[in-house]
Structures are given as C-alpha cells and as structure tokens.
C-alpha cells in the first residue's frame, strides 16, 4: 500500500508540473508520465485491462494528438501565464490538502456499504455480456467524435457562411 501512495503522490506531482510548466512540450510529457503512473497504479490494483487502456490510449494516443496540436499552433507558445497564479498555487494546494485530509478522515467510517456478491466470469464476459449497452454507447460516442472532427476540419468553399 505504501508503494501505491508513493505512486499516487508522483502522479499528482507530475500533473502539477504539467500545469505549471512554461514549455508546452514539457507539459505534454509530464501529462504522459502522469498517465503512465496511473496505469501502473491500475496494474497494481489488479486491473490490467484498465492499466493497458490507460497507458496505450491516454499516455499514448492522447499525447500524440496533443503534440500534433502543439505543432499546429506553434506560435501559441507565447501566451504569458500570470506569475502570481504560479506562486499562490502551493498555498492553495496546501490548504486544499488539509481540508481534503480532514474530510476523508471524517468519512473513513461513515460511508455505509452493502456486502456485495463475488464477481463471476472473466473481464471479457463482464464487458460483453453485462455492460453490452455501454458498448453501443461507445460506438455512438466514437461516431460522434469522428463526425465532429470531419465537420470541424471540412473544406470551406468561397461562398460559405461566415
């Protein structure tokens, strides 16, 4: 468990770096590292499929898309972030962490839970049989994404509406 906590802290740190970094490429790498760590956390919880998905899709695919966007918007690097924001950040974070710890302590015994039945079957069976409706949803959302990208990057003719 302690190793998990170390990993969690590392994930938070990488994410914080991604937010505060000035260089967008460094931020992208930090975000990918954060995803990688989350994937490892998933593995160690006994969730290999989620871990694989997290690493290959979020740390992989999304980072690639991200880099692509950075490349296409090269001049946008000159956006100056407010310095004060970066300085007050640790302060806010510490306040938040204290409140968070306090709340979690209080919750510790409070959330009642029903005993559950043991899980049957394999991951494949659960995904395909029990959550089949979700798969339709996934198809639909992928379709929506593809159509959206096609629509947003369409060729615009001369006489287009502004």
């Amino acid at each position, binding site marked *: 468990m302690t190793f998990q906590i170390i990993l969690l802290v590392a994930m938070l740190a990488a994410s914080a770096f991604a937010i505060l970094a000035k260089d967008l490429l460094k931020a992208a790498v930090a975000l990918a590292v954060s995803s990688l760590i989350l994937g490892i956390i998933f593995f160690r919880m006994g969730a290999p499929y989620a871990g694989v998905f997290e690493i290959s899709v979020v740390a992989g695919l999304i980072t690639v898309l991200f880099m692509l966007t950075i490349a296409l918007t090269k001049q946008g690097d000159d956006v100056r972030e407010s310095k004060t924001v970066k300085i007050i950040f640790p302060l806010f974070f510490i306040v938040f962490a204290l409140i968070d710890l306090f709340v979690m302590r209080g919750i510790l015994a409070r959330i009642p839970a029903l005993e559950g039945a043991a899980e049957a079957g394999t991951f494949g069976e659960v995904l395909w049989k029990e959550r089949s409706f979700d798969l339709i*949803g996934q198809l639909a959302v992928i379709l*929506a994404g593809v159509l959206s990208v096609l629509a947003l990057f369409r060729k615009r003719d001369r006489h287009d509406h502004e």
Partner: protein
Amino acid sequence: MIFLYIGLPLAVSAVLPLVGKASKRVLPDILANAALAGLLVYAATGARALLAQGPIVQQVRWLGEAVNIRIALDGFSLFMLMAIQLVSLCVGLYSINYMEHYGAKANYYALLLVMVAGMNGLVLSQDLFSVYIFLEVAAVASYALVAYGLGAEELEASFKYLMLSVVASAAVLTAIAILYGMTGALGFDGVAAGLRLLEANTVTGIAAALFLMGFGLKAALIPFHAWLPDAHPSAPAPISAILSGLLIKVSGVYAIARIFYHVLGLTPALSQILMWLGAVSIVVAAFLALGQSDMKRMLAYSSISQVGYVVLGIGIGTPLGVAGGLFHLLNHALAKGLLFLTSGSVQQATGTRNLDEMGGLAKRMPWTAGTNLIGALSISGVPPLGGFWSKLIIIIALIQSGEAALAVIAVLASVLTLWYYLIMQRKAFFGKLAERWVKVKEAPFWMTAASVLLALLVIGVGLWFATVFSTWIQPAADSLAKGF
C-alpha cells in the same frame, strides 16, 4: 423494437457521410428526415399500443444470444421520446434550407442524428452509467454542432461549453461512483433498493448535491448557467432550437427527475431545494432577458427561465405539480424550438440578430412573424395556448402545497416574461418597416413549413390540452411518481 430509437439514427448517421459524397443535396436530406419521421410515427402509434400492457422491458437478442441490453419504456420515457422526435423532425426539416451555405450538410445531419440517438438512449436507459454515456454521446455531438459555422464566436462558445461540461461530467460520475460504492449496483432498481436498505442520508445527500451540480449545469440552472447564453445564440438556428428545446431538458431535467424520483427518493429537503433552484432560475434569468438586444440571447435567457418553471413543477413532488412541470417541458420544447427557428429565419433574411436594428418585419415576413408571435404568447402564458395551462397547473399545485410565496413568484415572473417577449415582438416585427428591410423576402419553403408545423402543434396542444394532458402527461407523471 424499442432499440430502433437508438439503432436507427446511429445506423443512418454512419451511412450519411458516404451518401453525402454521392449526392450533396437531396439524398442526405431525405434520408435523415425520413428516419426522424419514422421514429415519430412509431412513437405516436406503435409504442403507445405496446405501453398499454404496462411498462416494457426489452431484452435485445443478438445473433441468437441474449445480449444484456435492457432498455425500458414507461410513461415518462415515452413522453420524452415523443417530444424529442417531434422537435427533432421539425429541426431536420428546417435544416434543409438553413444549412445550405454551411457546407457538408450530410455531415451535419449525421451529427444531428447522433445527438438524437444519444438523447433517445438517455431516456431509455435503466442504468446510471448508461445515462452518463448517452449524455456524453449527445454532448460530444453538440459541441461540434455549436461550432459548426467555424466562426470565431461559435468556436469560443463551443470551447467554453465544453470546459464547463467536463466539470459537470466529473460531478455526475463521482456521484455515480458514490452510489455504486454504497449499494454495489448501477441499475435504477438496484440502487434504489440498496439505498432503502442502507438509509445513509448524509452520503446520499452528498451524491444528490453532486448530481444537482452536474445535471444542473446541463440544464442550465442558475448558478450553473454560464455557458448557455453564449452557446445557444452562436450556434446555427436549428441547433439552437434543438439545444434549448431538447438537450437541456433531456440531459438536464429528465436526468434530475428520473434519478431524484426513482433512485434517490424525493425527500422534503430535496423538494425544497429543487423548488427554490427553479424559482431563482425563473426570476434571475427573466431579469437578464429584459436587457438583451440580441434576439437569440434573449431567447437563451428565456430558456433558462422556463427550465426553472419545469424544475419548480417537478420539485413540488405532488402528482399535479409533476404533471404541470412535464406539461411545461413539452410546451417549452415546442415553443422555444419554434422561436429559435423563426429567429433563424429572421437572421438569415436580415443578416443581424440585433433587435434594435430590426423593425416592421411582419410586413415582409408574415409567416415568420405570425409563428413567432404564437410561440412567444405560448411561453408567456397567454390563454388558450399551451404555456398558459402548464403554468396554471404549476401555480395551482404550488398553492395546494401551501407554497404561497413561490406561487406569487411564478405569477409575477410570468408577467415579466410576457413583457420581454412583447418587447421582442415590437422591436423585430411590428412598428415601422426600416429602410434597409424593404427588400427582404419570406423564409424559404422548408423553414417556413417547419415553423408552421410547430406553431400548429403549439396551438393544438393549447386548444386540446385536456386530451394531451390525459393521454401523454398523466401517464408520464404517474410513472414518475410511483417508481418504475
């Protein structure tokens, strides 16, 4: 086959881009609108017959094996399906003309159909997580549709909408995780049963608050409304119509109603919170609408205000209140859809949305002006149009429950609503015909046809409100009140 509601739009939308390559104009239009019309007919006739035997649970079979797709149709879902198909069809017809010069019409129709499929899936789901998935399906489609014109204004609106929606999704998923953690179930029945056994009021309260935050943002309740006044005006008119008329209600109000009634259980505290949230939305948005000079922005604030009425009605908790809220949902969907469509006609004819620049358009665009007037009167609660009856029912329900203060607020806000709509009518349509508008023409055929169709529906619902009430609204309210 209830699954058709999700399957048909998705299948057609997958095919549309290819069809669009072959035929730029006619075929995509026909295909898309035929699909919507077919679903509407099915909802109006076939599904009702099925329902007479009690709520339907459908177990879909795929290649012989029973796949676990449980979708269920009860009075409430059927009512929402009707509303969705009705307004979507009119929007689809309207888009035949309006989206001409936006380009890639087939792609637009495909996105529209995906959004309809998402909304249909949402109202048919029996499972918390499925509700979330279809909410996202409709939302992702809507981001692209808002930004469809690719102008600076719409892209900005779309991005802000997107950012806020992500926060809403996170809130909803956290609430779902909490409920799942407690009860070990994701289906409505399972969670409801589990919560009854557990009686964990504080944690359920936290989950309820998170749900309110998330779905409240989708429904644009104050104080979660910030995205709507930017997104709805910048979107193309038919999209504004479907967003204001349907999406905020399906992904916002329907979800709140379904979850608060069937899963969490409506406690007196929750009821009060819903009612006051609704009341705040009604009043604040009405005042904000008064000061607007942008026609579509005024309509957007009006949407926030009217959704407040719906939430107020649903929050009362009595059968009459719920029925009133649902009736107002229908009236607003029809009327606001109509208003946005006609505002699009005006925008296309004159090139502006600024009310101060318009004037006397009724002389040149009589159909648009007439239908717009009907929509405005209905929302303002002028008899005998639909809006009057639904507001009356809500007010009566409020008085019956002893909520005199809220009843007074509802009445006064209604007067405010009438006031700003009359301002819009006067500035845009009546008065002297300004010089520059002497040459404008009435809107093209399909746009006018769609507006007229909606206007007829608005009038019809008003005149025959008793029938509409007993056939559609009462079963919906009943199924909501008694639990599934």
